[in-house]
């Protein structure tokens, strides 16, 4: 691959052996990267591949554990975002830090030198936004703007500092296709001015469309460098997800039982401007099956989980059935009473109250379905602390939860141990249906494999399991069948052993219809 050699001109920004440890975990290890002047450079990788960690080091938010950063050939230390700006680096974040109650002009003015007057900043912002095709009204209030317009503010704000390199972190993950097209025009214009762009994405089509070079990360290491225009989505996907785990396959268990959870033609409009609407979701999971739902973050996973768990009910009672009973309009406890269990994505504040003890957290989730064993005194609902405590203890032993003290607060446990407890809390009831969102997100490898084993065992014992995950390795370890969620649509499910990683990667990247043809070209 000759294209993988560095650029002929001296690079604007180089990274040599950059490494970042969080504890023992290497989020980035030994990363080399060169960004040439006037190029759009893609940084590709799955969630958790280390992309965000890398750019946070470039922008002075995280301190590298090792390696060096060179700006125009000179080794530099970037201690803060303002130092990064002084080296000519601007950044547009995935989550914006705007003041909603202020106008566009005021937001921009706040981040600029005080010597500019407010009207002048508004004029300058209007001029820049016009020049780069980013229409913005400086007088509009941010609260009234769409996500795409908010992103434009961030871009204009970055451009006002006249940077040589602009870093965009997943810029299209929150945009409509039309807004994304506009953004691409802007980026190409920046390129013609000789500015460089570091473009972080996992959407293969757009990387192929606008990027000159790509560096691919996987598990914190560079696994490929290429000219994305000369690659197929399939070959990019292979670099991204790695071919080394493709051999993982599971025989589907022969005797499948009844359908235990079923969703029929369910559409749910978006509740907030940031949410995704679910469109015509169909799924069926039988006893003994593990359905894994793959997908890039923000494509409707959270929304799907919420309607499955009953955190948000839907008007069509028939659209969701658990063990044959229509449950669309009933809440989470009623669904738990039917033998379902749910593990949401966020551990703190959603799945568990951090300040409360483990036993109290257990009681919160199960006081209704396990009323008889945990409460006494009829309507008085007196808590039987001893039985709650012993149940918490049993869960900790079953799931090997490591904790300090008998009944510590949930917040004192490490992420992995708390997640084991939360999953264990649901498993302890032997649920007929278990729905889990991102079961091992941010969990160490040991705890992750314990949790995955528990999910597989639960399905073997005759339950239906739904796992929503972004981790493809995990999906192949636990799933008997796989669907992909993209922009609120759920694909039909495929038997896990019939799918290749790159097929899933392509579907996740938002290429719905061309999945099979594109992937077969790659073989």
């Amino acid at each position: 691959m000759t294209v993988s050699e560095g650029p002929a001109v001296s690079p604007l920004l180089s990274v040599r052996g950059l490494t970042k440890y969080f504890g023992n975990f290497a989020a980035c290890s030994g990363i080399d990267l060169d960004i040439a002047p006037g190029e759009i450079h893609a940084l590709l990788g799955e969630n958790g591949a280390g992309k965000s960690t890398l750019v946070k080091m470039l922008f002075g938010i995280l301190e590298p554990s090792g390696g060096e950063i060179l700006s125009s050939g000179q080794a530099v230390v970037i201690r803060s975002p303002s130092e990064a700006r002084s080296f000519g680096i601007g950044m547009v974040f995935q989550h914006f830090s705007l003041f909603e109650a202020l106008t566009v002009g005021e937001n921009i003015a706040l981040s600029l030198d005080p010597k500019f007057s407010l009207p002048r900043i508004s004029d300058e912002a209007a001029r820049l936004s016009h020049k780069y095709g980013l229409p913005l009204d400086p007088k509009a209030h941010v609260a009234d703007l769409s996500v795409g317009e908010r992103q434009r503010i961030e871009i204009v704000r970055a451009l006002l500092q006249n940077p040589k390199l602009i870093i965009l972190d997943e810029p299209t993950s929150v945009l409509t296709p039309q807004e994304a097209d506009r953004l691409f025009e802007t980026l190409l214009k920046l390129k013609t001015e000789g500015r460089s762009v570091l473009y972080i994405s996992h959407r293969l089509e757009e990387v192929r469309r606008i990027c000159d070079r790509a560096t691919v990360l996987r598990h914190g290491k560079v696994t490929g460098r290429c000219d994305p225009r000369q690659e197929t989505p399939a070959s990019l996907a292979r670099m991204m997800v790695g071919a080394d785990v493709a051999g993982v396959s599971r025989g589907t268990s022969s005797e499948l039982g009844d359908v235990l959870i079923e969703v029929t033609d369910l559409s749910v409009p978006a509740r907030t401007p940031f949410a995704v609407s679910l469109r015509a979701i169909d799924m069926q999971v039988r006893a003994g099956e593990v359905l894994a739902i793959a997908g890039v973050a923000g494509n409707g996973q959270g929304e799907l989980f919420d309607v499955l768990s009953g955190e948000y009910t839907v008007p069509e009672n028939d659209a969701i059935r658990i063990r044959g009973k229509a449950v669309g309009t009933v809440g989470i406890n009623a669904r738990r009473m039917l033998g379902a269990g749910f593990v949401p994505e966020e551990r703190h504040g959603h799945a568990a109250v951090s300040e409360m003890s483990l036993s109290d957290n257990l009681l919160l989730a199960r006081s209704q379905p396990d009323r008889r064993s945990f409460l006494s005194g009829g309507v008085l609902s007196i808590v039987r602390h001893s039985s709650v405590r012993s149940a918490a203890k049993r869960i900790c032993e079953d799931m090997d939860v490591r904790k300090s003290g008998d009944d510590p607060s949930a917040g004192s446990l490490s992420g992995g141990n708390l997640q084991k407890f939360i999953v264990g809390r649901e498993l302890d009831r032997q649920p007929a249906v278990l729905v889990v969102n991102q079961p091992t997100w941010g969990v160490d490898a040991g705890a992750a494999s314990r949790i995955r084993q528990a999910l597989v065992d639960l399905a073997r014992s005759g339950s239906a399991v739904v796992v929503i995950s972004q981790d493809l390795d995990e999906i192949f370890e636990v799933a008997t069948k796989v669907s992909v969620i993209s922009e609120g649509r759920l694909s039909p499910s495929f038997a896990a052993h019939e799918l290749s990683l790159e097929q899933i990667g392509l579907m996740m990247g938002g290429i719905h219809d061309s999945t099979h043809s594109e992937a077969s070209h790659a073989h």
Partner: protein
Amino acid sequence: MLEAILLTVITAATPLVIAALGELVTERSGVLNLGVEGMMIMGAVVAFAATQITGTPYIGVLAGIAAGAAFSLLFGFLTLTLVANQVATGLALTILGLGLSGQIGESYVGQPGIKLQPIEIPLLADIPLLGPLLFRQDLIFYLSIALVIGIHWFLFRSRTGLKMRAIGDNHASAHALGINVIRTRYLAVMFGGACAGLAGAQLSLVYTPQWVENMAAGRGWIALALVVFASWRPLRVLAGGYLFGAVSIGQLHAQAFGIGIPSQFLSALPYAATIVVLIIISHNRRTTMINTPASLGKPFVPER
């Protein structure tokens, strides 16, 4: 007759407008100080005492302002430096102020006070009706109008005002931009205290030039409600203050005429009117959302 009624409306509205403007600035910076009543009564008693001692009501005005600001500094220290709960601290400040002012003012009860004299503005004061109403007034009335205009300009035209609104909207982002959140909030809290003190001075030097225990009579609470009713906008505070003043004076005259409505109901009318207007105003979700300081009442501890 009309002129006399309108004059009393202005006198009744002025302390509400001033106290509410001060609280508006405090709340725009994201701090909820429920101690307005306490700061106001402290301003009233100290202004009265200083006037009695020196014989000069203008020194009384300055003393009232200083007393309100100093009292608010206590609130600022507790909530900003020690990060105490703002609601509880504000309530405590009011209770403390009511008690402390009674103690300070004990010897002044029943003493005749010295009224702050009107300042006549040449020529303008001779305009029929408007002249005596607007241009033959005391210093505190002129200050209240200057404050409305000044604070409006400060909040929406000046850079410091912009920073203050940014802090009130999102203190974490403001801190990240390098704005000193705690210092700005201290200044905003003290400005609020100074305004409450000035409003108190108006009560004991203009409205009823004497000291009566608990003479603020809930005006601090009305001022707090006015800030919300005005969606944190200074010009609306002016309008709201005068609405409340007009209704309370109007019902007094209605009682004097002896119309067939129970007096208890009439006394409740200003409050009821304020609540009704509050509900109508907060109906406009967008205005409320744009103007409500999103970090109001939330404690801020800078990351290190």
